[in-house]
């Protein structure tokens, strides 16, 4: 029983960064913007979170720094694609490339330094409960944030007027503009929210998952988060499910390596990436489903006519 609980806990830990980054990107894409820079914003969040923790000694400040780092970095993308109407695919790619380079440079002196882990939740009495105690009341704080964030985004997108407006912008920015909605302003806020989420996801990596700084430690998770949004056909609860499936794949291959299964470790390591491809193929085969849910103006630059 203990092993099962432990495995479930590690799956949750592996799924959390994917979930947070994907939920953020989901809001961005719902507003009609495709930000391929998730990987870059995530790694900036990771280095920012680790750096601030290292300098101040407090992982809580690190957590805030990670969020701020992601948000500020995403602003770069917002200015380019929203104010200067640049190609979103190319700009997102350059955000990722810049983030990988910048984080590597900033993190040079952090390599090999011991990190500080965000403490797990502990509620006397509740956390000690058998089985469910640690699952429900003994995880890291970002886990709870991720669940709350998913619920909040679901509520925001589908139960509030602002959420409806955001979705309408994603489906037709010209119509929204004609109705007097501030398309660009909404999109700025969406992109910054996505950046903050990606930063937080990165912070999870360097403050909880493996509390240290390793170059390129995001290891493609930002890209997997992007794939998750497509997989979830832009629905928050499906992102949650997808993130946990991928968390399970990620942890499953690690456990398989540890058990010494006679398959080369490299093949096991490539499973999450191959699984992403398979899942994308399965979901895109259903053309009706993807056509119906894809925000219609996704990725198209918008220049308001005056």
């Amino acid at each position, binding site marked *: 029983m203990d092993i099962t609980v432990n495995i479930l806990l590690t799956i949750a830990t592996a799924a959390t960064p994917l979930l947070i980054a994907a939920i953020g990107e989901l809001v961005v894409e719902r507003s009609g913007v495709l930000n*391929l820079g998730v990987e870059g914003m995530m790694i900036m969040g990771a280095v920012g979170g680790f750096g601030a923790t290292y300098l101040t000694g407090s992982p809580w400040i690190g957590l805030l720094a990670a969020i701020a780092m992601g948000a500020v970095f995403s602003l*770069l993308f917002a200015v*380019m694609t929203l*104010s*200067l*109407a*640049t*190609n979103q*695919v*190319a*700009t997102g*790619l*350059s*955000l990722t*490339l*810049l*983030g*990988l*380079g*910048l984080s*590597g*440079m900033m993190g*040079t002196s952090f390599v090999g330094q011991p990190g500080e882990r965000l403490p797990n939740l502990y509620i006397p009495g509740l956390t000690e409960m058998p089985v469910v105690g640690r699952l429900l009341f003994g995880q890291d704080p970002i886990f709870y944030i991720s669940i709350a964030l998913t619920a909040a985004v679901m509520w925001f997108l589908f139960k509030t007027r602002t959420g409806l407006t955001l979705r309408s912008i994603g489906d037709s920015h010209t119509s929204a503009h004609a109705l*007097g909605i501030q398309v660009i302003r909404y999109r700025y806020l969406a992109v910054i929210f996505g950046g903050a989420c990606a930063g937080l996801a990165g912070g999870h990596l360097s403050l909880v998952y493996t509390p240290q700084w390793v170059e390129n430690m995001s*290891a*493609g998770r930002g*890209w997997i988060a*992007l*794939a998750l949004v*497509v997989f979830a056909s832009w629905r928050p609860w499906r992102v949650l499910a997808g993130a946990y499936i991928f968390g399970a794949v990620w942890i499953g291959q690690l456990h398989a390596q540890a058990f010494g299964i006679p398959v*080369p470790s*490299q*093949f096991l*390591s*490539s499973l999450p*990436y*191959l699984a*992403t*491809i398979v899942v*994308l*193929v399965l979901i*895109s*085969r259903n*053309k009706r489903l*993807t056509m119906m849910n894809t925000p219609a103006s996704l990725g198209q630059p918008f*220049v308001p006519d*005056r």
Partner: protein
Amino acid sequence: MMRLELVKRPQRSMLFSALSPFIAFALTIIAGAVMFALLGVNPLTAFNIYFIEPISQVWQLHELAIKAAPLILIAVGLSVCYKANIWNIGAEGQFILGGIAGSMVPVLFPQFEGPLVLPLMLLLGMVGGAAYAAIPALLKTRFGTNEILTSLMLVYVAQLFLDWLVRGPWRDPQGHGFPQTIQFNDSAVLPELMPDAGRANWGFVFALVAAVLVWILMSRMLKGFEVRVLGSSPRAGRFAGFGLNRMVFFAFLLSGALAGLAGISEVSGAIGQLQPVISPGYGFTAIIVAFLGRLNPLGIVAAGLVLALTYLGGEAVQSALGISDKVARVFQGMLLFFVLGCDTLIHYRIRLVGLALTKPEGAAKLEAAPKLKEAR
């Protein structure tokens, strides 16, 4: 508070079309100066070490050519993809698979020598790269799967596959446990162009030939026209009878083959054996090269040389100033940002306008109307 406002130009500006890479480069230099100053280094000293010293001697120019060759080869292929609005960002993986496929000859048949070895390796490299690129193309045309994500995921798979090969079945048994294959025999090594002057090899020639051929293809042949039409307006392309699916395959196979050629040229020329890592991110940097070169094969040659210099400069500041060689990645990223930003100037005029936060646009227009009457 100020706000940027874009005003569409009636025609694309030829002036900014030509100037934008230069403006972008100038802005990168300024941003780089700020960065070096923040790192506590005199920017002039740093720039001298970064941009001037690495190309002040002939042998260094050869090193530049070695770095530029794969960048140009890959970027030339990618430019065709991007012109057609097809997003192959997995060139890094196609590069690796090209290197692996071409290396089959010297690694599996080390006794096989003679003039046939190299052409066979190069051919296999191109086939390997093209075959790997065919996967995202097939998934896109068959199932409509997003090619950005699949081609990128395949990069990680390729890196892990290479890692497995050189640590497992292809490891040199006499290599003292190092994860690498045997050294290629002499007839499997890409010859140097001028062995007396420096290390540059035939890979650079391949790059120039590829650039010229693709330039002819894009500007003088129907296929190039097809690429451009489908890229700017798939609907118009359909009416003209151009098949989008065929174009996806054409662009992916071409760019994959060129990336594969770059891979095997690098392995057989600059390295001489397979190692766990055979590319410092050429496949990704080539994306920047393609955009900096305006998706024009001849522009890409120039852009490839510039980006190759950022690699050499990064190594130089690392050894001279103790700054991480990641500084090269930062320069490359900034350069792409500024290029994309400056490209806006080609299609738009940029106006700075004061922003009245409380007034909606309609109200401002209404207020302006009576004033016009008064003026009359």
